[in-house]
Structures are given as C-alpha cells and as structure tokens.
C-alpha cells in the first residue's frame, strides 16, 4: 500500500473536493487513532509529497482515458465526469440542480442592478416605477445582489451591486458579458431630482471618464459602470 493509492481512495470516496491541507489532516487524524507503524508514518507527510502524488494521479487518470478524471478546481481536488456524458447525468440527477427561476419583477430588478450598479433602492424604484422591497429581499437572500456601501448623497442611502453568484447563475464571465453591456448602460434615464443634484455636485463636468462614464445633460444622466476588476469572472 502506498501513499498514492491512499490519496486516490480518499478523493474517490470524498463527498466534496479536498484541498491538500484537508488530505494532510485525514492522514494525520488517522495516524492519531492508529497503532500501525505505517499509518503512523504518514502523519509526517509533507505538502510537497502530496502535490507530487496528486500530479501523478492526475496524469495516470488522464492517460487511462476513462469517463472520469482527477481535477483540481480552485485548489481542491476531486474526481469529475467528462462533459460529454452530461445528457445522461442530468437525467440521473433529475436536473434539480438549479433553484427555482426568478419571477419577472425579480429579473427586472436584477437587470437594473446589473447595468446600473452600484445603485440605490430609490433609483431602482424610479426606473421600475414600483416599490421593490419584497423583490430586493429575495435577491439578497438568493445571494444574487449584495450591499455595496452607502452612496455619497443626501441621506447616504445603501447601494446594491450584483455578486459573483449572479455571474455564475447566468453563466457570465464578467459584467462585460451582459448583453449589449456598453449600449444598455448608457440608456438615458432621468434621475430623481434629489439624486441629480447630489451627483451633479459630485461630478461637475467630466464628459469622458474612462471606466466610469458620466454624462450630465440638462435632464438626462447617463452612467456607465464597467465591471469592477475585483469581480472578474468566477474561476471555475
């Protein structure tokens, strides 16, 4: 019995992806329970040894060319299927992978937040023309939007933005992947008078600002918000 075989067995049986650290902990905890010399000897297994063993396993399984292989996703190792078998696996798992779909008000509110983030509740309501309390609650609970700090305007209202989960849910790499992102962000929307005043003061006259485009017209305000770099696509 060798370390490689043990690690493979652990990964094959684990219900979730495991990091090197978690694997090391399994070896260590097993050693603590055992009086077997070999089992005890694995307590001192180094991360480099595990990395080496994992690299070998990954290669062996790739070469084996079976319907599954060993993959490392975000530092955690797991056995995964080959994509080509997805049709049968969806049948097998009943396609109950996704949460229920969003309602129409939910989608609309989400769309506004996506294109206008960070955005206050008042702005959303101004665009949608209705109150969004219940809908916002749902979106927050589903983790699709989150708080984005307070706006530097009168009353300092809370602003909202979309989350990484939002990108994952819609299969988007980043906010640039939103349909017609550039164009749609510039669709003119009249701001509520209060906000307009505040914004106008904050940004006197800067016609072209890379990244954050703000055009201030007489009664039209166009705000373009490129995806913040920190939210760059979910690593998969």
């Amino acid at each position, binding site marked *: 019995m060798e370390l490689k075989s043990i690690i493979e067995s652990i990964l*094959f*049986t*684990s*219900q*979730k992806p495991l990091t090197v650290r978690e694997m090391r902990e399994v070896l260590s905890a097993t050693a603590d329970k055992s009086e077997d010399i070999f089992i005890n000897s694995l307590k001192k297994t180094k991360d480099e040894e595990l990395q080496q063993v994992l690299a070998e396993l990954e290669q062996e399984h790739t070469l084996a060319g079976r319907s*599954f292989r060993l*993959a490392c*996703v975000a530092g955690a190792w*797991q*056995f*995964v*299927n*080959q*994509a*080509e078998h*997805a049709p049968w*696996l*969806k049948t097998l*798992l009943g*396609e109950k*992978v*996704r949460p229920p*779909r*969003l309602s*129409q008000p939910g*989608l*609309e509110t*989400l*769309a*506004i937040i*996506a*294109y206008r983030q960070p955005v206050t509740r008042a702005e959303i309501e101004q*665009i*949608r*023309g209705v109150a969004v309390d219940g809908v916002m609650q749902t979106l927050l609970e589903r983790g699709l939007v989150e708080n984005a700090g307070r706006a530097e305007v009168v009353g300092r209202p809370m602003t909202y933005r979309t989350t990484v989960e939002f990108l*994952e*849910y*819609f*299969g*988007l*790499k980043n906010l640039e*992947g*939103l*349909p*017609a992102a550039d*164009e*749609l962000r*510039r*669709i*003119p*929307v*009249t701001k509520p008078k209060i906000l307009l005043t505040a914004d106008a003061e904050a940004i006197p006259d800067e016609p072209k600002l890379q990244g954050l485009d703000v055009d201030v017209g007489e009664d039209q305000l*166009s705000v373009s918000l490129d995806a913040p770099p920190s939210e760059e696509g979910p690593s*998969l």
Partner: protein
Amino acid sequence: MPENIVQLEIFEGPLDLLLYLVKKEEVDIYEVNLTKIATQFIDFIEQMRQLDLDIAGEFLVMASTLMYIKSRELLPVDKQAVVDDEDNEDDPRWDLIRQLVEYKKFKDAAGQLQVKEALQENIFARVPGKPDFEPEANPRRLSLSVFEIIGAVSSILKRYHQREESRDVFADRWTVSEKIESIIEFLKSKTVLQFSELFGQATSRVEVVVTFLALLELIRLKQVRVTQPEPFSEIEITEAPPEVVPMPQAGNGSVPPSEMVDPNTVPELPFFPH
C-alpha cells in the same frame, strides 16, 4: 479432562463438541475411532453432571446415541447385528458421521460469512456529494440564458418609455417601426446579423435604444430568431423560418396573419412613441 469443563460454554451443541473431540484426535473424520470419541464425550457429560452443571437436552440425547454405538461394539462380532453393505441407513455410526460432516461444512461456511461480515465493515461506496460535471458542462450555466435579462430590460424600457412619453425623450429621427423595417432589410442581404453589428452604425444613444427596442419587438413577434451558439459567444440574429411563426391572436400589438408572413410589412406598434 478439566479443560473440557472450562470450554463447555463455547460449544454450540453436541455436534460442535464432537467435532472438537474429533479434531483433537488429529485424524480424518471418516477414520476416527468412534468408540474412543464416544467414551470421551460420555466422560465429559458425566463430569458436568457431577459438577451440578445444567446440561442441555441435546447433549444427553447425543450421549445416549454414542452409548448405543459403543455398546454394539462390545458384543462379540458374531452377535453383532448384520449390517447390509448395500443399505447403510440403519448403521448409527454412519448416521452420526454423516451428520458431523454436514455440520462441519456449515460451520466452515459460517466462518467464511464471518470474514465477509468483517470485510464489509471496511467497504465504503462512492457517494458523490454533488454532481461532478466538468465546469463547461455545468448545467447551472446552460438552462438559463442571458435572454431572460434582455426580456427583463425590454419590460422595463417599455414601461419607462410609456411613462416618459410626454417628455419627448427620443429625437424625431428614429422610430421603432423604422428600425424594425431596417433590421428586416438588413437580414435580407445578410443571413446572419451579429448583435454588435446591429448597433455598429448607431449615431446616438437614442438610436441604440430604438434599435434595441425594435429587436426586442421582432423577437416577441417571432419574426427573427436570436441565438447564442455557445456560452459567452456573440449573439446572432437570423430571420425566423416562416413555418415556426405562430399567429399572435388577441391582445396588445397583435398583427394580422397576412402581415406576419410578409416580412416587408411592418406592423404598427402601439407601444412606442413615433
């Protein structure tokens, strides 16, 4: 045989005890001297009786059987019952040995089951906690498209512009009806229209909005088909095949069927300001 008394508890029954005595002789079960074994068995029972131990009925039955076998052997050979070689059924020795052999086999089988029982405690089935799809095949990314977002934007804009109608938001140069016409014209010359192409010639933001609204309306009316060949790729607009065009019936913006099949005829859209 004091050690026998100590071991009494571990015998499952008289056959188990007999097997133990046979095994002590270290000979094959068919070669064993039954008379000697019988003597040992009866001695064993006798000691138990002297020690006032409870003796299970089965042991006493077996003891009497063995005593019968033993007594037969004590008779002179010419007085012994004639045993027909062709019919051994009445030979008590053979009955006992056959029973012992059979019991021994099942005892061994039980031992093998016990090994399997212990082994099975160490067998874990792979139970994946969640579907291990390849990232590309993750169903989370396939069943819901960005078109739902487009639809949502469409609804917002419709209502928004209805509210803003009186404010004369749009420049007079562009109307949704005109844009619908030009998209259809575009598609006549080019089978596939890229989403970005559609907006490439736009000279103002207002035109972009109007173009987009026109596209949404064409999608709604199923005059065009909008597809995304693969995730993250550009959206493509193509003319919808006529046979899949459903006939919009009653309701806002319904269009006479005759106009639907003719792509040159642009329906009047009551939604949008002209």
